């Protein structure tokens, strides 16, 4: 997908989405891989839909379930957690913990009435600017299709 086309399709929303819905997306990036990957996307000027906001933590394993719940409680429509690829975590095994934790979080979210797809885990290395872009575009589309968060009156 070319950058322009990708950007357009994301900003126009998915099939079922509301034309004017501007989702609120939070992205947790670990400092060593994913944050650097996001920076690389920027340095390479890879255009992306403007609805995501990055919060940096040292490792994806620092992403406390509480942060995610707080984000949804405060009105986020989607949360993306990005970390180093398996076996690549700067702190050795942090991302394995993240992976297990995220699987549980999805179940938990569902019990709270959220579509589990509103939470996503992705591995993005420092060299994968394009993957970061792709992930953001896809995730934005997913969230657009899911619509407004149940916390804000959506379903």
């Amino acid at each position, binding site marked *: 997908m070319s950058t322009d086309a990708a*950007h357009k399709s994301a900003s126009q929303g998915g099939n079922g989405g509301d034309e004017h819905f501007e989702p*609120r997306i*939070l992205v947790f990036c670990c*400092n*060593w891989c994913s*944050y*650097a990957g*996001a*920076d*690389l*996307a*920027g*340095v390479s*000027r*890879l*255009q*992306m839909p*403007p609805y995501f*906001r*990055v*919060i*940096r*933590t*040292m*490792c994806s*394993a*620092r*992403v*406390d*379930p*509480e*942060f995610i719940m*707080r*984000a*949804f*409680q*405060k*009105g*986020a429509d989607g949360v993306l957690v990005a970390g180093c690829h398996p076996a*690549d975590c*700067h*702190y*050795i*095994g*942090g991302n394995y*913990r993240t992976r297990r*934790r995220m699987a549980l979080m999805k179940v938990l979210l569902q019990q709270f009435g959220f579509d589990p797809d509103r939470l996503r885990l992705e591995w993005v290395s*420092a060299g994968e600017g394009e993957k970061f*872009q792709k992930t953001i575009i896809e995730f934005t589309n997913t969230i657009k299709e899911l619509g407004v968060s149940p916390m804000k009156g959506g379903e």
Partner: protein
Amino acid sequence: MADPARTKEEERKGIAVYLCSCRNEIGRHVDLEAIAEGLKKDPRVVTVGVHEALCSNEGQEYLKDELRSKKFERVAVGACSPNIQGLIVSRALEEEGMNRYLFEQVNIREQCAWVHPEKKEATRKAKSLVKSAIARAEKLQPLEDIIIPIKDSTLIIGGGVSGMQAALDIAAAGYKVYLVERTDELGGRTYKLSMTFPTHNCGICCIQYCRECVFTPKIEDVLQDKNIEVMLNSEVEEMTGGFGARHVRIKTPKGPREVDVGTIIVATGSKTFDPKRIPELRYGHPNVISTTELEQILVAQREKGGGIRRPLDGKVPKTVNFIQCVGSRDKTKGNAHCSLVCCTYAIGQAREIKKINPDAAVYIHYIDLRGPYRGFEEFYNAAKEEGINFVRGRVSEVVVDKDKTYVRAADTDSDTLLNIDSDLIVLAVGQEPADGSDQIAKILHIQTDIDRFMKDINPMFPSEFRRGIYVAGTAQGPKGIRYSIEEAKSAAASAIDLMKKGKTKFPRIVAFVDEERCRGCGRCEKTCEYEAITVVPDPKRGVLVSRIDEIRCEGCGACAVACCNKAIKVNGYRLEQVEAMVTELSEEEVTSDE
């Protein structure tokens, strides 16, 4: 803006916000003035400034001036990625006496201005990011750096050229060196070469070819140095301890040996690709040899004379074909990376064959010639003048027909297919990480890359791979001898620098335990990858509590999440600090309605 009613002694309060236009790189896409205007209404904010380039000299002077003249306590900055110029900006404030832990920078360049073309959208995003920085800055706490003592000894893993060079440099500076080598001799792979680039002979005295004269002095130097303890046939088994004082267990033929060191240099080197992995090249047939084997033939000829003869029947080969990139630059047939040295050494070997046997027809089949070294172009031109044939194109296979061997190759310059009857075929094999280097990476907690070489923290700077641990030579990636030695020298210089100071300051971004809340369950102890946490009895209260060794802690924060009673906090990433940002960014729509 100082309030005249305030006295000089009055404490600093509030947050100053600075937005950097990055010489219009940000300013072009983000309406910084509008953001600044909006922020002025925020009661937490005492001053807002927009500057052209905070990281420039003028920018730093500007910040210092601001800090001197205004009474703010904390700073929130919207600029480039904090991983790029963040340090420069916060350092300027620190020099002027501000506690640098009260500084927060958000990224409105790489992750905003550069990726969102619509000015309105980008401005909105930048604004919410800056507000989240303010929210976080409000919750930050002043801290002191940790002072870490550094032991004055070094462990060097690998006794090749890089390891030996680093050992000599460090020993010369007066520090104790433990040099661990897996095999039974020093010198590594370089010791087995017949000649080195660019002198095209052994490299030092040039009177005659002899490997002894190149490396023997160095090996002798290493062996005789009183500061260097060489352990041959030995391997590192375990590392414990933290930055500045690592405890390492080494398996030696005389039994286990334990050493305490302040710094570690990894020089585990590389190995050559095994050409058996590409069956169509028919490696194994006596006419097909690797460049490493050709080196051995060249060494033998140098020592005993007798010319270059092929292994099959001892005949002098009339046609020699070099096949480049064996195991390199093709993921399906080995590795994706370029091994960087093969073009250079193959040309060297080809010239050597031509010199000894001027009648031989010598071909080099290459995809592109890559020799990123000074003098390479001249080296290559000399080879062409000497009559070596360079053929651009891939080799599809080596065909064995009775006792003859043929090279099937494309010549893309003349657009023809070649079938060359060749009595000696030399495979220019690439470099891969040495056996066991992944083990070492694991033991030392160093990351490895997709090509399995060790990975720098920042690929732009040759630097530490982990605090107090350096990597030199081909353990980091394929490279020539000279560049390996350069890296060894720079790693040694960094290690010496650290040990000379005897201690170093380190940011206190580490975890700590709220002992009142800790129930001593030990989950954190199991979570910690660095053995920084131990559960110990607290005699005063008669309960178990976790204790964290600040020096061993790397600050990842995994334990804080694992703690079921929120007793562990990570400086700089406390719950309330991250949540302030989360809240600000999630609610944005409501709050940005101004």
